[in-house]
């Protein structure tokens, strides 16, 4: 998550940051609560925001945040440092978030397919978006209407500031797919925001 906003690692040399992460992970493995709290404080805000925006429900997001960190504590044994700790946590968290979203959608019988080009390229009549400010609430509501794949990629790239390469790592997709999903999401958001 080296390039995500507020990651706090960009200013330190990469090797030193990675070494610090490995030391923190080692302390967590030894069962030090303080070390795990440090990890939690560094990453919980972004994961919680992601969960809130993916689930559209703060209570569910809070429950899932707990599960994500409990699961992270269990799985730290398998963390080898190949990816940045933040990316590893994003991947772990996003997998659980998407499982939850899909399970909920499955129960509700919703279709959560991706956007097709006809939908995203539709150019409804209306004012240009650039003629007015984008209201934060409107944007949050429009985000909630995106299919989960597009939404996840958009949130990671445009909201959290990850690069497409990092988005592809987190979501387990090709870099080109990340670009495609983010681009479709922007076009769909444009359409939704112009309708408001």
């Amino acid at each position: 998550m080296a390039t995500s906003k507020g990651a706090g690692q960009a200013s330190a040399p990469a090797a030193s940051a990675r070494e610090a992460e490995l030391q923190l992970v080692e302390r967590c493995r030894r069962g030090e609560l303080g070390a795990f709290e440090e990890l939690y404080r560094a990453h919980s805000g972004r994961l919680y925001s992601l969960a809130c925006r993916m689930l559209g429900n703060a209570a569910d997001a809070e429950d899932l945040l707990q599960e994500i960190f409990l699961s992270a504590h269990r799985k730290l044994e398998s963390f080898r440092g190949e990816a940045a700790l933040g990316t590893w946590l994003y991947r772990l968290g996003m997998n659980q978030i998407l499982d939850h979203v899909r399970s909920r959608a499955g129960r509700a019988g919703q279709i959560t397919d991706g956007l097709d080009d006809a939908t995203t390229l539709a150019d409804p009549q209306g004012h240009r978006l650039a003629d007015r400010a984008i209201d934060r609430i409107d944007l949050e509501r429009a985000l909630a209407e995106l299919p989960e794949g597009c939404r996840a990629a958009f949130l990671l790239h445009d909201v959290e500031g990850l690069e497409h390469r990092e988005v592809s790592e987190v979501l387990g997709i090709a870099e080109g797919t990340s670009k495609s999903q983010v681009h479709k999401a922007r076009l769909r958001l444009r359409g939704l925001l112009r309708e408001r």
Partner: protein
Amino acid sequence: MACERNIDRIQEAVDGTLGSIRRADLEMHLTECEDCRALYEDLVRIRDAAAALPPQQVPDRAWLQIAGRLRQEGRIHDVQKPAPARRWSAAWLAAAAALVIAIGGAALLLQHRSQPAPVAQTATAPRSSSGNSAPGKSVESVETVQNEVDAAQQQFEKAITKMDDLRKANMSALDPQTSAVISKNLNIIDQAIAENRAAVKAEPASVAARETLFEALRQKVSLLQDTISLINEMRKGNNAAAAQLVNKS
């Protein structure tokens, strides 16, 4: 409608990944094509608005609940365990005595709400003792190790009873959800204590069984201390400080 052949270039320009030559070419096109310019400007505004979305505030209780569950599952410890000592039971006795003194401070705090809560300091008291740091002449005067263990256990239980009474009398300061989580966690620890007591009863000479029992008792003390700290800060209306203080304990 924007020119379909330019949409990818526009998106790449918004991403900031368009090469300089292609970008110059696109910019020239944007001066001539109103639809493409509108699309570019709209997408930039969406990207900027998304980047400016504020992070959601994580509720303070989330960490408390995670820490509580990690404790229940025995996957964490708050500080380093003391090195094995020859007279380990004396360490427990000293720790329990320190705890009883600490409880008095916690009780006082609940009666004087405006004072800061030093409970976080007391949390480390039981673990800071070692076999060589028992107070005064007490260690050598105790007749047997068994007696020391029994006495330590009684002190712990006495302290726990006092703290639990305090907690029960003041739980109204906490929101129902937090109360429910704390009660659930206490029940789980109580169950562990009961099982460990049974193990000690079955094998009175087992050092490991006693250590495990004391560990369970200490977990209960730790949770009760966290709860009392939380109540203190909630009463002062300082949710963030409550979480901070408890988390440091």
